[in-house]
């Protein structure tokens, strides 16, 4: 029974892997923001990416 789950899972995962690649799914979830100002080009400070996560930087020794 569990073995069948394993087999079906394997086949399913292969299909999913192909489909995700074809349809362009990735693990990243960017924030979607509508109606950003049209003036960004002229005034770069008028919009900032909401994405402010700081990466944990591994330091040197």
């Amino acid at each position, binding site marked *: 029974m*569990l*073995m069948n*789950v*394993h*087999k079906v*899972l*394997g086949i399913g*995962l*292969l299909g*999913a*892997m*192909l489909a*995700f*690649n074809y*349809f*362009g*799914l*990735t*693990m*990243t*979830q*960017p*924030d*979607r*923001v*509508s*109606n*950003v*100002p*049209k003036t*960004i*080009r002229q005034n*770069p*400070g008028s*919009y*900032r*990416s*909401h*994405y*402010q*996560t*700081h*990466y*944990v*930087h*591994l*330091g*040197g*020794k």
Partner: protein
Amino acid sequence: MLQIACPSCGASLVFRAQSTTHAVCSACRSLVVRHDVDLESLGKVSDLQPDGSPIQLGTSGTFLGKHFEVIGRIQVAYDSGFWNEWYLQYTDGSNGWLGEAMGTYFVNQELDPAGPLARPEDLRVGSFVTLKNEFFVVCEVSTSTLSSYEGELPFVFPSEKTRFTTADLRTGGQLAATLDYSDPASPTVYLGYYVDFDELKLAGLRDFNPELENQQGVSTSVLRCPTCGAPHELKAGGVSQVLACEYCGTAIDLKDKSLKVLFQVQESEKITPLIPLGAKGKVDGHEWECLGFMRRSARVEGMDYPFTEYLLYNPYQGYRWLVESDGHWTLARPILMLPRNLGSGDPVTEPTDNTLSYKGNRFRHFQTAVARVRYVAGEFYWQVRLGDEVRMHDYVCPPHSLSCEESTGREQVWSEGRYLEPLEVARAFGLNSIRQPYKVGPSQPDPYTPLKHRAWMWWAGYLAASFILMVLTTMISANKVVFSKTGVATSDPTSLTVVSDEFEIPGRTSNVEVRTTAGVNNRWVDFHLALIDSKTNEALDFGTGVAFYSGRDSDGYWSEGSTSNAVTLPRVPAGRYYLLAEMESGTTASADMKPGEAPSRPDPAKNFSWSITVKRDVPSWIWFFIGLGLMLPVPLWYWLRESSFETQRWTESDHAPTSSSE
């Protein structure tokens, strides 16, 4: 071939082999010796004793591709019954012997020892003898007497009452030898191989069909119990030594003409066996008859663990033991080939806790215990007694097992076993119900091992298949650069904000990879990014960052991190886009911060070059690795189950795994 008339009775007598000097007339049982020109009768020989042998004069067979015919026989009596040396005439004109007793077969030939042999009184059971550069273990030294002859023979014994010593020499293979001291002045060596009945492809055997035997005037021996009068049909007449009446418990010595009572089983001890005496069943492709039933108990740490044994008999295959313990069944057969010590490769002379190798399998020691006979019923081929004790050494390699029984005479009897599923036993002997096995049997095959192997095979198959598919995906994906920009960041804050020109993302909706690089050392750079659709003014906000540290210490040069990083956005439709990037940079490493300290603060950028590259439809290996991960739990689960099954198995052994709480 020489055909002549018997000097005693005139019946036709045939000498087929050049090597034969003697022949027994089948009509009058006179022993006739062939001299150069004439024949001489040496008088009558005694009758052959019934010994249950399936071979007869005229039986043919094959050994190592050579065809042979049985033309003569020497029947020898020893402590445990009879054995036969059948004289063989091979089609190529050569001769040899087939030693046979109770289902064991030894094809052998006389060998010139090329050196003096040990004297019989110097032979110690368990000692080594070298013959033809091979080590042989002395396994049995017995005293025998001639019982009778038939057919053609290359020699005869000086007298019928000659007592002589023989020694059985064995190895860790099928190779074996017998030392024969019937002429103490010049002992003879017979070298050969133990073979299975089926290997010899024997034809023209005795038929054990009782009806046929009755027609041939051989009556099946029926014996009445001297105590209760119950009739017992002896199944292995001539071989069986003890008969224990299943009705009244009287055990009779079959080797004694007056049927001496050996012992009496107490009524209170009486057990009704699951497989009745006389029941027939097919196991391992042969039909077996249940001759005897024995209950023994093994004493482990002061506790008695009972187990039952059924003695099975097939006149061609010999004896098997069907052993039941806690509902677990093992079919065991006596073996003459010795297991080897795994380390040295030498045949085992003294059973220990060491791992053994036998027929290519590794057997781990399971348990050593003293087993004691508690109850017997039926026929037995040895002088069984209530209270008999042996030291039993068990080794397992599921579903196989090895067992050595050491009796006080230091005689060692090895047997190999195979685990049988209870249903197999029930089906073979037509049992309506059979008890559920309790716990894990010593040689019970681990049901999770094959599942684990299969699950790992599927995992490996998945790895291969998904890798190939990913390589193909990589080959056919567009992987197209749609935008690329480089620049230099300076201490001027405006150099840290970049708005790109519009660029086209063509094709179908696909993923988009944004790769950022910064030429930094001992510094981190965060990129706050927005990919903006110039038509809809919709932004995808995301971020990434790089950090690279290096230096020199006592171990030499070290480096950590990378100057490049990428983020892949999902499902970006075709269109015109531009990119907004803000960079932040600093030197403090998070790992260097003390607990509670504020996160790494940006500090004015030292000059560094940067680049941003946007690609569409890139192969995404992340799904490949996630798939491999998701395929892990099932094999790991089976692996855990297998381990816990093995723990349960070994908990019952002398080598119980110690838990960490102890």
